[in-house]
């Protein structure tokens, strides 16, 4: 695999989130539930929507809440709540959002069925891993493999809810009475490990395939000008003689038309700061 750009190491990120798990493993039980899924109380659900909008603020396009953060998180955290295949892995190979190519290599009017709507059954090891992540050590009959060395692992559900309760309690005035800037300040005052966890979940909701419960109306992909899953059309098709590229999203030539969102002064300033910090060069 090619390496991705890396500014904080993956190891450090794992350590941050792992720290939260250890901390919360010993915290008292979480408050009761009141939502349709039985997962969140109304107050917790409202707070989750509020913080989703802190992470991705609404403007002329949806924020984190309307992008489906709550439904995404509920779907993940209740994956083992019934006897169906857990909603961890969507099926494949196609979603049905892109058409099949025709004989000339161009888009046809035929679309495959949505295989993403199916769920893939977990194998023995994957099921244990996901039970451990979502339900914590209590999710496995013998506990986590190295529990005597590391202590019990807290469930994702407990990590999330405990942090939400702490944030609700710390908000003064209550979140509902705060301005967007004050809500951002309340969010920023929470423990880094919990913030990292909720940022991860909210951004997954916004930019993953909609079959996982978020990215409602594909608004997340539209916001970041991403075409989404591209099969079976792809970005080029072999027509028997040559590769035919998509005129709207070419492979080997520049995009047609003007830049949909050029680099702004704020982003330019941030990039220069990062480049200076890691010793790079700017034009």
């Amino acid at each position, binding site marked *: 695999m090619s390496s991705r750009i890396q500014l904080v*190491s993956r190891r450090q990120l794992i350590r941050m989130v792992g720290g939260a798990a250890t901390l919360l493993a010993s915290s008292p039980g979480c408050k009761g539930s009141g939502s349709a899924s039985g997962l969140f109380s109304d107050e917790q659900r409202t707070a989750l929507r509020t913080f989703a909008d802190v992470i991705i603020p609404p403007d002329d396009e949806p924020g984190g809440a309307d992008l489906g953060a709550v439904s995404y998180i509920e779907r993940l955290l209740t994956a083992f709540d019934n006897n169906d295949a857990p909603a961890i892995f969507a099926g*494949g190979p196609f979603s049905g959002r892109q058409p099949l190519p025709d004989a000339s290599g161009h888009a046809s009017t035929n679309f495959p069925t949505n295989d993403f709507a199916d769920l893939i059954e977990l194998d023995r090891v994957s099921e244990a891993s996901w039970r451990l992540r979502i339900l914590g050590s209590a999710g496995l009959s013998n506990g986590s493999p190295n529990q005597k060395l590391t202590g019990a692992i807290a469930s994702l559900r407990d990590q999330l809810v405990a942090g939400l309760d702490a944030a609700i309690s710390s908000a003064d005035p209550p979140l509902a009475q705060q301005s967007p800037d004050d809500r951002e300040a309340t969010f920023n005052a929470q423990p880094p490990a919990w913030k990292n966890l909720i940022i991860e979940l909210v951004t997954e909701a916004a930019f993953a395939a909609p079959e996982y419960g978020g990215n409602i109306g594909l608004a997340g992909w539209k916001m970041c000008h991403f075409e989404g899953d591209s099969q079976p059309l792809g970005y080029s098709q072999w027509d028997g003689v040559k590769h035919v590229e998509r005129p709207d999203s070419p492979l080997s030539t520049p995009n047609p038309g003007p830049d949909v969102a050029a680099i702004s002064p704020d982003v330019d300033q941030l990039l220069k700061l990062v480049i200076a910090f890691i010793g790079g060069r700017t034009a």
Partner: protein
Amino acid sequence: MRKTLYGNTQLDKFDVIVIGSGAGGGPVAHVLAAAGQKVLVLEAGPCHLDNIDDPAHDIVARFSNDELKIERRNFMLQNENVEPRTWRTAAADGPRIETLTGNVQFLPKTVGGGSVHADLKMPRFESQDFQFGTLLKNVQNASFADWPVQYDELEPFYAWGERLLGVQGKIGTNPFESKRSGDYPMPPGPPMYGSLVVNKGLSALGYTMFPYPTAVNSIPYDGRSACNNCGFCSGYGCPINAKGSSAVTVLRKALLTGNCQLRAETRVVRLVANGQGNQITGVETIDPLGARVTFTADRFVLAASPIEDVRLLLLSGGLGNSSGMVGRNLMFHYQTIAFGIYGERVHGYRGRAVAQGFADFRGKPNDPAHPLAGITEISGGGLPVGEASYYARVLAQAKAGKWNGKLFKALMRESPARDRIMLLVIQAEDAPQVSNIVDLDPDYVDLDGLPVPRCTYKSHPFEVANGQFYEPKLLDIMMKSGARYAAITPRDDVPSSQHIMGTLRFGNDPKTSVCDKNGKFHDIGNLFASDGALFPTSSGYNPTMTIASLALRVGAAMVNPASPASVIKT
């Protein structure tokens, strides 16, 4: 319950058991099954390729353009909370520095192994790469060794492997390539725009970009469709089977002979040996439901990855180690990575992950003006979920942990780290060291209660210095090509490359190597290795083509030890 048994399900007596179905295991299974041997392939991971053993239907993959499934939810990769690995730099660190980290063994567990997730960059090694025991004998505290098989002897197997897996490329375009007996089976596919942008810098500085040899169909090939450059390539299984993984090529061919059986989700946990430890009599496994089952055969092949091969030998009482070299000389390619961010959208997330590269930084041994590093990949950016994480990390560092939602949203819209970025990745020679070793962690266990592998690994000054030599040159290329911002990415301490090599070095001397020229253990008459564990040195080219070609040769030598080349099918 879903299917885990494939091929000739009636077979219950086997000539050979192959442990692992990736680039090392699949080719061996193919050669042996084609020669009439009854082969059982055991794969620890699940199979996501329906119809892999059905001659009447094309394979239907459960792989998809699904970033969450692949990148975040470990559809294929090991799960570090139930299958951890540990790491340290030296014994002086204590039992370990890092625990529960997957970085030290980051290969997929699925039918097809690492050849499924890879974007299958398949360059051959250069002829010089097989001779560094002679050419680099003066490097202190390194254990460079000549290969017992030289380039000329491996060349016909390279050509065979390229035909079987389906490799695209163009002879003569890499000025540093060694002599080939013919052109690639397929022409290069279309370039990615970002590569052409980077080439402005390469051309200005006198470097030579060429189409990267990849096992990706540029045209329909061997019953599989042409790649449509969907963009979800590196790290992803191919939804349309245009990538020539071991699973959809050689393993499928083996299964269709009627001589091969594949058991997925079947994890080998012990090699059963005779009293002298010089013959293997069977393998103990954990089946898909968690039950212990033993299989027997006449001969056995280790192809589970350099780390898992060693772990299995150690879990079996430390077999095959009269040389004391089992687990030693663990190597990863030493990666130096530069990124450039452009004012324009170069949309590097479209296409094969890497379509072009250059080898000007491969270098020569003992040449201070051109130190030995590796081929350089020209790669695009990632996808939006990962992109969001990068920005979150950047904001956390640059803004002292303070989240800024408006700035985050601007970053996602303007997309410097996906739509405007290109990467240059040097896959550099990693000097082998006897002190870099795989053994068993004394405390940590996996889901099944078995000790996990521990990697003791530290980079040698050789590769560190060579990497630093080329860093400013990478930045020169980026800036000359028009990048607005460019930098070298910070390194992680834990080796995280998926190019894992060494640990069961092959050679002619039983005192200094574990396996012989044909991959057979010096100490064990019926045990072979056929994956990257055999490599005495790492080269500076991606390893998969050499793993597959060497595996073909191991299989051929099992069929005809006196003349492996006579087994090659043209």
